[in-house]
């Protein structure tokens, strides 16, 4: 178990997803990419970005950057929210669809395309939840 939004989180996350999620069964062989923009990250009130790319159900990229944006990647979806919302999502207090419908996260990209892969996104978050046990207060 590792700290949420740490380099270890990325490394363990890659490993866990590759070892535990079946490209067809769990990820429906989807090809997509998500840029997460996490604002107000404590303790310095910074912005942290992560980029996650799935190609035909396989994790093909998962990177983290604190402060600077990940401008070299063109994500299909950009989701923006504060650290508290992402913490609640990764702690299982609120689902990503609920966060979206409750306007806790803003989505850039087609909402219908995002909703089409909601089941797979839930699966990915569930997997990352299993390795995340430390959060900033």
């Amino acid at each position, binding site marked *: 178990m590792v700290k949420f939004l740490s380099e270890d989180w990325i490394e363990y996350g890659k490993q866990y997803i590759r070892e535990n999620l079946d490209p067809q069964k769990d990820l429906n062989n989807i090809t997509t990419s998500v840029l997460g923009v996490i*604002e*107000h990250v*404590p303790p310095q*009130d910074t912005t942290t970005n992560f980029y996650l790319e799935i190609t035909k159900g396989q994790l093909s990229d998962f990177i983290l950057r604190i402060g600077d944006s990940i401008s070299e990647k063109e994500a299909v979806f950009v989701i923006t929210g*504060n*650290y*508290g*919302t992402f*913490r*609640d999502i990764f702690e299982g*207090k*609120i*689902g*990503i*669809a*609920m966060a979206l*419908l*409750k*306007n*806790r996260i803003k989505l850039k990209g087609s*909402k*219908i395309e995002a*909703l*089409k892969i*909601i*089941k797979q996104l*839930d699966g990915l978050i569930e997997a990352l939840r299993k390795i995340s046990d430390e959060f900033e207060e």
Partner: protein
Amino acid sequence: MVDDSIVTIKKTGLEEAVAIAEKGTHCGMCRIDFLGTGLCPSGKKHGYVAYWPQGRMEIVKHLNNGRIQPTEKLIDIANSCTLCGICDKQCNFATQLRPEKVAKALKEYVKNLDKKKLQKVPADDILTGLRAIVGDEWATNDPVIIASYIRSIIPPDAPLNYYIVIPETTEQVSKIIKFANKHNIPFLPRSGGTALSVATPTILSNATSLEHGIVLDLLRLKKLQIHPESSTARVGAGVTAFELQKEAYKHHLRANVAEAGAHVCANIATTGIVTTWGNKYGCFADNFIDLELVDNDGNIRNHHDMEISNPYATDNNFTNISLSPPYVITEITVKLFPIFDDEEAVFVPFDNVEDALDMVLELGKRGIGLSLAVLSYKYLAEFICPTRKIATDFEDVCKNYLKLRYVLDVVCTKEDKKIIEGMFDYTIDQNMLRTLILGSPKLASLKTSEFMKILSEEEDPLRAVFAGPMRKHFEKGLDASPENIAKVYDADLQDFFKKVYARPDFTNVVWLHAFRILPSRLMRQRMAMGPGGAIWAGDKKHILKWINMFAEVGDKHKLEHALGFISPLDDGKFIYIEYDYFYDHNNPEVAGRISQTLLETTEKSLALGNVFTLINYLFKGIHRKEHVLYPLPKGLTKEEEKIFIDVLHSVLGEFEPW
């Protein structure tokens, strides 16, 4: 459970209070002065729901089940009640409950507490920050106060990890939201709370409530200015429909408002005000001239700002669903409308929905009537009968003996009334309506009488009663008087209600439509969940198919159900339909069936197409009807239906398939 060591004597009386409190429904009628009694002095002074009768009822339940421990604030809340009895009158009119008994029991309870053992509630950094914005008095983390918000914004089983804050200005709302974002705390505004309380016992609980964080109670945003010169009113987020209407009437003007206890700003944000006046007065953005809101980043915006992008446009696709408001409306300038001196109410009874629908569509297209709707017998009975028992018997009389299943309900000018009277053999006029209101107990009591039996054997019982030779006997037999209707109330309240019903307003159907105090009776000791939405008025078969679907699903899940109302919009091009399911909110099994029904009817409605369902309606109220309703979404494709089901599962968790 509560640590009994802190209670020095047995909690006598609290059990009876809990029995009353469990029937409370957060209808909010104890927060408006609709009977001319004045307001609860404690609630008016302190603001928090905890200090209002509805809040005390919620607190008593959670003290009894051990969810909360007594704090200093509990003593203050209990002792702030002067036992003036106002709440008993208000609550009795709407729900027949006696909240003062709860307040008395709470006073007794705190009298016997060992004050040294009260739970301490230290302030933390977040509370200190909130108090710096609104002042010490208006932000709290006291669990007793927090508990009073359970079921009307806080889910029933959530840990009480909340702050309640009551801002007074738009600037304070902005600062609170920026503060919440900076500290990564979710927030949600609360106005009347009634709509949230209806959803709470169902699967929608988590979707509509705040799971933890900051509750922004908007009650103190009380600006209310009438501008007769422009027929507008500037209304703050804490102003209720009743309060606005009361002020508007002083200027011989009328506002298009929701139920009496609903807050105007929140209602516009949520559904764009669904009323029976919508065909004449408008819907969605028709309702207002300008508004001020605070967005989810804490920015204050006004619709009159020249730089903003088009605030009136919206996507009406099924994916554009919002379960929480994306902004907090803090002030709004609403339109007001003239009141005509010759306004009257006229009802036309029907024994089937098809004929009633034909007529409301026809009148809607012709622009006849200020308020125009079809009501089912159930709404009629619930609205006019003083108690639930009388309403049940009245329903029986209407449905089975009089064959009165629907009424066309019109408020109109004399000229329009003549047109309506010319279209039908007989109508029910204001005098007869007054007789039905005051005579409702007597009419209900005739359920098993020989008179009703004879009447039901008539070919057209409605004609016999409302136009035939029996009319005089019928009117006389109902003993319609304030004295007689007052007899159904508790002995100590009879004099008061005699005076209430002697007031012209309380039997004036035009006034009752404008002030909308009677819909609160739908909440007496239970809940009414009313899905529905807007549908194109040009296809009668499609409309009937939709109504029948609601009825079939209600039957399937063995629920008490009925059409609520049908009312035209946009010069009769659309109609709004509310279909109601009634349930005991204390019965989890029936709440489960309500949940199934909501999911099933929503999915079937979306699949049916050419309808704009309630779930689509939510938080579209500030947009133009032209964007919201044109064109109505087509039925879901199979692929979209699957997406919808996946999203529902993701949002609501696992539930039984239908």
